[in-house]
């Protein structure tokens, strides 16, 4: 295996341009893009519509705590204004908090208390959603703790309840994060029943681009097989080795492994960089790698069908670019996949939408 690893290394280092494009370029690109992306994320203010149907202490505290984040601006509005604001993109998203919110929270009921309004363009609102969820869960669980204490002690007065509640509150520092069930709403989603827009489009595009890039690198590495065949190296290897099966197995394993590693590294880096902003897609990495592995098998099959290296490269380039473009188009437009299901990027985006 070491012999073939050495050969792969030589292939990558064949010339300085090849080395740059295979190893340096994607990381270089990411490190160039990263500060720009994070600066943009840091500098952008997130206006959030806040619709309340009661004037309670709980709601005021939740709003204040969310407002503490330097990038979130809470704007009090009516339900009608919230829908209009999201539609016009004046606000990133809006949260409508149901009637008797405080009472329900104190009773420990958290499901379907909040309606989340967002548009296709909403990008940062998932982050705010998490923040709202954590604050509401904090209230709900502290209240539940106070209620349980009151029940076991047989107490009914407000003062004891407040003491128990404050005691429970001590356990919430530093701010914990909890998930809760939201009722999502956006006009298009309501019509189609599709929730695919939950994934930020920019990130999906980046993920898709890395997959395309890894695919192209693999195709370029496979071009060597054509050259070696023409030069008679493969014929010589067949005699020297007795068969070409061990050679092909090791070559595909190593080049495929290298490309998968490259994709994994880039995607992981991208995913981790966005984690600070409330997005985590590290759990998507493994299924994405499976999709890329299928792409690699497909690409290997093409080498057995197509005899000319230039035609092989052309087919790979055209197919991969169509895959990247059409799948992303389908993803952002929320259209049904239909025939575009033949493109591997569509599988990726379907996976990301789930």
């Amino acid at each position, binding site marked *: 295996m070491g012999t073939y690893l050495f*050969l792969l290394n*030589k292939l990558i280092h064949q010339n300085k341009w090849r080395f740059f494009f295979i190893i340096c370029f994607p990381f270089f690109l990411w490190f160039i893009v990263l500060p720009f992306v994070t600066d943009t994320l840091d500098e952008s203010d997130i206006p959030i519509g806040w619709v309340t149907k009661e004037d309670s202490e709980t709601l005021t505290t939740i709003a204040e705590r969310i407002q503490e984040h330097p990038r979130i601006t809470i704007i009090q509005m009516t339900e009608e204004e919230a829908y209009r604001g999201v539609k016009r993109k004046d606000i990133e998203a809006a949260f409508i908090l149901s009637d008797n919110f405080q009472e329900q929270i104190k009773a420990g009921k958290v499901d379907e208390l909040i309606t989340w309004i967002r548009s296709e363009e909403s990008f940062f609102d998932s982050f705010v959603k998490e923040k709202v969820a954590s604050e509401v869960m904090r209230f709900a669980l502290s209240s539940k703790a106070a209620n349980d204490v009151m029940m076991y002690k047989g107490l009914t007065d407000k003062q004891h309840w407040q003491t128990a509640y404050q005691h429970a509150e001590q356990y919430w520092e530093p701010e914990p994060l909890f998930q809760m069930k939201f009722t999502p709403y956006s006009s298009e989603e309501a019509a189609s029943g599709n929730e695919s827009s939950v994934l930020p489009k920019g990130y999906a595009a980046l993920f898709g681009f890395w997959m395309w890039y890894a695919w192209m690198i693999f195709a370029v590495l496979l071009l060597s097989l054509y050259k070696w065949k023409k*030069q*008679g190296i493969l*014929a*010589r290897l067949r*005699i*020297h*080795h007795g068969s070409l099966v061990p050679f092909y197995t090791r070559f595909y394993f190593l080049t495929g492994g290298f490309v998968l590693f490259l994709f994994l590294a880039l995607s992981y880096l991208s995913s981790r960089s966005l984690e600070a902003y409330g997005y985590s897609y590290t759990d998507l990495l493994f299924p994405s790698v499976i999709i890329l592995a299928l792409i690699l098998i497909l690409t290997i099959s093409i080498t057995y069908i197509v005899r000319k290296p230039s035609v092989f490269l052309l087919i790979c380039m055209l197919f991969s670019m169509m895959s990247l473009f059409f799948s992303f188009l389908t993803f952002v437009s929320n259209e049904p996949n239909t025939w575009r299901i033949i493109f591997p990027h569509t599988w990726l985006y379907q996976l990301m939408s789930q």
Partner: protein
Amino acid sequence: MIEIEQVDYSIKKEVILKDVSATIQQGESIGVIGPNGAGKSTFLKIIASIVKPSSGKIYYQVNAYEEKIKELRKNIGYIPQDIALFEDLTVYEQITFWQKAARQKVSRNNVSQVVEALHLNEVKDQKIKALSGGWKRKINVGIGLLHQPEFILLDEPTAGVDLAAKDDLIQWLKLLHNERKTLLIISHDWDVLNRLCDKLMIFQQGRLLFFDEVSRLNEFEQQAIRNGSSEELRKILRLR
């Protein structure tokens, strides 16, 4: 011993080899000549098991080829006409790669013998693509013989090689022949053929016209003139 019985080979409707039969004994050194496109290289590829004949039978040590293919490949060294080397590796890396890629273990002693015989130490750190055609040809031959095969099939081993390098190659092949290795050499160079070969095979238009001792070549030439063989073949024979 390799026996070839009525072997035909054609691609689509083009006949490359027609009804070729021959027996190659262990330790023989056979030159293969003929005009361009006569089927010489295809004949060598069939023996090397790179190409399957369209019809006919081949036996290796009395067994059918298909049955003994692995053993056969172990004992065959095929040196193609093209330079079948990884161009981006240095000479040293190239030798190491083929040494490790071989099916059977190639000892350091084998490698040293090849390196010394062909004076490869002079260029060991240079990349193949940076070397002259002569050096490439020498390395091409050396790599094919690293595993010390019993049957050595060489397709134009001295094409484009300078006189000194050619002499190195001939001396080394002679040495191998003296060790009872079987040599089958395609060449247009009578110097190589005269110095190395005991027997000759002459191909024309896919047919094996002559397979005998070099001493019987005059007889064949007269016969060829009488039978009106191609001008190209007669010219080749005149040049010897």
